[in-house]
C-alpha cells in the first residue's frame, strides 16, 4: 500500500531524513519509535504533503501512485490521512463544517454526490458518541479552546468519519489520560481491517498495549535502524535506544 524508498528530506538546509525505507501493506499496523528529533514527524508530514520539506532523493508510492506528485488534498482524498502531533486551532470554522466539507470532497473525488443531511447527521452522531465527545463540540470552532486530549480525540473523530486507507497518527497518545487513551485506541482499532493500514508514531509502549502493532521500527537520525515485531517495543521500553544505536553502528 505504501512504499517509501531511500527517502532523503531537507528542511531549511538541514538534512533530516537520510535514506529511509518503509513498506506498509494493507491490513497492517506499524509503529515507529525513536528519540526526539529523529525525524518521525517529518516522515509523516512529508507523506501528507506539508510545505517546507524538500525531498532531495527517493520515492513515496501509495497504491502505486507517486505521492510526491499529488497535491495535499489529493493525498487526503486518496485515503492518506495524518493525525497531527499538534492539531491547530481554526477559529471561526465549525468542526461540523470541516467534517462535512472534507467528507463531500472525498465523495466528489470518487464521483459520488454530497452526503444527504440525515445520513451525515447519523454518522456524525454515532462517531462522536464513539469518541465520547459531547455533540456541542461539533458546533465549536475546530480545536478552539479544546484541551490537549480533546484535540486528539477530535483528530480520531475526523478519521472515523473520513475512513482513511492509511491513517498516520503522530503521537496520538500524548496528553491523553488513561480513559481517553482507551477511547482513542478503541477508535483506532475500529479502523483496522484487511483493506486498511495504520502507522503510529509513539514514544510509549502504553499505546501499543491497546493497539497491538504488527511491525515496530526504530527511527534514529533520519533512518530506520531496526525493525521487528511487537516485542521490539517492549524491549525498547526496557532498554532505551542506546543498544539499538550501538548495534546499528556495529
Amino acid at each position, binding site marked *: 500500500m505504501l512504499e517509501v524508498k531511500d527517502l532523503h528530506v531537507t528542511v531549511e538546509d538541514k538534512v533530516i531524513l537520510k535514506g529511509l525505507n518503509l513498506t506498509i501493506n494493507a491490513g497492517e499496523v506499524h509503529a515507529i519509535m525513536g528519540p526526539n528529533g529523529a525525524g518521525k514527524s517529518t516522515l509523516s508530514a512529508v507523506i501528507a504533503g506539508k510545505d517546507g520539506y524538500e525531498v532531495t532523493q527517493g520515492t513515496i508510492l501509495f497504491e502505486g501512485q507517486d505521492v510526491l506528485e499529488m497535491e495535499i488534498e489529493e493525498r487526503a482524498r486518496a485515503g492518506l490521512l495524518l493525525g497531527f502531533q499538534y*492539531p491547530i486551532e481554526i477559529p471561526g470554522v465549525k468542526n461540523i463544517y470541516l467534517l462535512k466539507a472534507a467528507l463531500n470532497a472525498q465523495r466528489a473525488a470518487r464521483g459520488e454526490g454530497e452526503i444527504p443531511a440525515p445520513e451525515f447527521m447519523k454518522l456524525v452522531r454515532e462517531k462522536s458518541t464513539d469518541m465520547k465527545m459531547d*455533540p456541542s463540540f461539533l458546533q465549536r470552532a475546530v480545536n478552539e479552546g479544546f484541551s490537549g486530549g480533546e484535540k486528539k480525540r477530535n483528530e480520531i473523530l475526523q478519521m472515523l468519519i473520513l475512513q482513511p486507507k492509511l491513517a498516520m497518527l503522530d503521537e496520538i497518545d500524548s496528553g491523553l489520560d488513561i480513559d481517553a487513551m482507551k477511547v482513542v485506541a478503541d477508535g483506532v482499532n475500529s479502523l483496522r481491517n484487511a483493506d486498511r493500514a495504520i502507522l503510529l508514531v509513539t514514544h510509549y509502549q502504553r499505546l501499543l498495549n491497546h493497539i497491538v502493532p504488527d511491525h515496530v521500527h526504530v527511527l534514529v537520525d533520519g533512518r530506520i535502524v531496526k525493525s521487528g515485531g511487537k516485542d521490539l517495543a517492549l524491549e525498547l521500553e526496557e532498554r532505551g535506544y542506546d543498544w539499538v544505536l550501538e548495534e546499528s553502528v556495529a
Partner: protein
Amino acid sequence: MSAPERFLERLTARRGGDPSWVAARRQAGAARFEAMGFPTRRDEQWKYTDVRRIAEGDFALATDAEFDSARFDEQRLDIDAYRLVLVDGLFSPALSELDGLPSGVSIEPLSQAIVANHEAVGGSLGRLAGVDFSPFTALNTAFADEGAIVRLASGTVVDKPIYVLLLSRANGQPVMSHPRILIEAGARAEATIIEHYSGESEAANFTNVVTEVLLDRGAIIDHYKLQEAALTDLHVASIHVDQGRDSRFNSYNMNLGGALVRTDLVTDLNGEGAEAAYNGLFFVQGRQHVDNHTLVNHNAPRTFSNENYKGVLDDRSRGVFNGKVFVKKDAQQIEAYQNNANLLLSDRAEIDTKPELVIYADDVKCSHGATTGQLDEDAVYALRSRGIDEPMARALLTLAFVGEVMDKVRLNVIAERVERAVAGRLPERFNLADLVETAEAIQEA
C-alpha cells in the same frame, strides 16, 4: 470652467417647478459646493481617497427610468418587502411595490413629497445633513429631487423590510444621481430598512447619496446598506443618524461593489440610553477603492456604541477605515467599543486604518483596536490535509474571518449574497441551514 461649475451647469437641465423654499435650498447647496470645490487629498478627511475620477468626469442626468425586467429580477433581492426603486436616480413606479402599506407607515418618492409640499420635506429633510458636512452633501442638496421619504408613526412595528433599490445602468453617456433618503421613526417604531445599490455590470455612473435617519425615543431601526454596484461605478454616500432616548440603531454596511466608494456614517447619540451598533464589511478586489469613515458622537450619558468593521482586500485594491468615537464632556457612563480587522489576500492590496477615540468624560468604558493580517497558512494546510481543496480552504477561512460580523446579519438573503461574494464559490450560507439543523438534531438526540 472649473469642475464645480461644470457639475452645476447640469442643474439647468433639471425640470423646474420647485416650491420656492426647495429652490432656495438648492441655491444654498450649489453656492456652498461651488465655494468648497471637490475635496483634495490635502483635506484630512480625504487623505487617502482621491476623487479626481469623479471631479474630472462628465456626468449627465438620466431622463428615464427604464430597466430590463429580466435583469431586474437578477439584481433585486429575493425578499418580501415594501420596495421603492430608483433607476439612475429616477423613480420607477413600474418596478416599485408600495401597495398595502400598513397604517402608520408611509413610503414616498421624494419627487412626490416635494410636489405635495410634504411636511417632512420642509421640516426634517436636511436637518442632519447640512450643506457644510462635505462638498458632496452640498452637491446633493443642489440636485436632490428624487429619493425616498419613509415615515413611521409612533409605535408602528413594520411587518416587512422597507427596501430601497438604487439601480445603475450601463449608459453610453455616464450619468450622475443625487438621491436623498429620509427615515423618520416615531417613538417605539421598529423597522428594517435596506438600501441596495446594484445595476448593470458595465455601469460607470456617479451616485452621490445622502441618507438621514431620525429615531425618536425607543425607536429601533436596522439599516442595511448593501453596495453591489458595478466595479466601474463611482459612489459617495453619507448617512446621518440622530438618536433619541433609548433608541437603537443597527447599521450593516456591506460593501462589495464600486470602483470608488466613500461612505460616511455619523450617529449622534443624543438621548440617554441610546445604542448604536455599526457592523461593517468590505470586500474589495481588482483596483477597487473603498473608504469608510465612521463617527459616533456620545452626546448624552449612558449611551452605548459598538463598532466592528472587517475588511477583506484582494488584488491591488485599497481600503480606508477611519473610525472616530467622540465622548462629550459630562456624557458619563458611556460604553464605546470599536474594532477594525483586515485581511489581505494579496501582497499588493493596501489598507489605511485609523481608529480614534476622543474622550472628554471620565466615567467611560472604551476600547478600540485595528489589526491587519493574512490567512493563516497552517490552517489552510490543516484543511487541505483533510481533502478540502485549496480554494475552498481559503474560502472557509475567509468566511471565518468575517464570521463575527456576518453572524449579526439577520437578513439571510443579504448574508448569502455577501458570503458568496467573499468566498467566491460556496453555494450556500456559511452557517449552512442544513448543518445548523443537523447540529440541533444532534443536540436534541
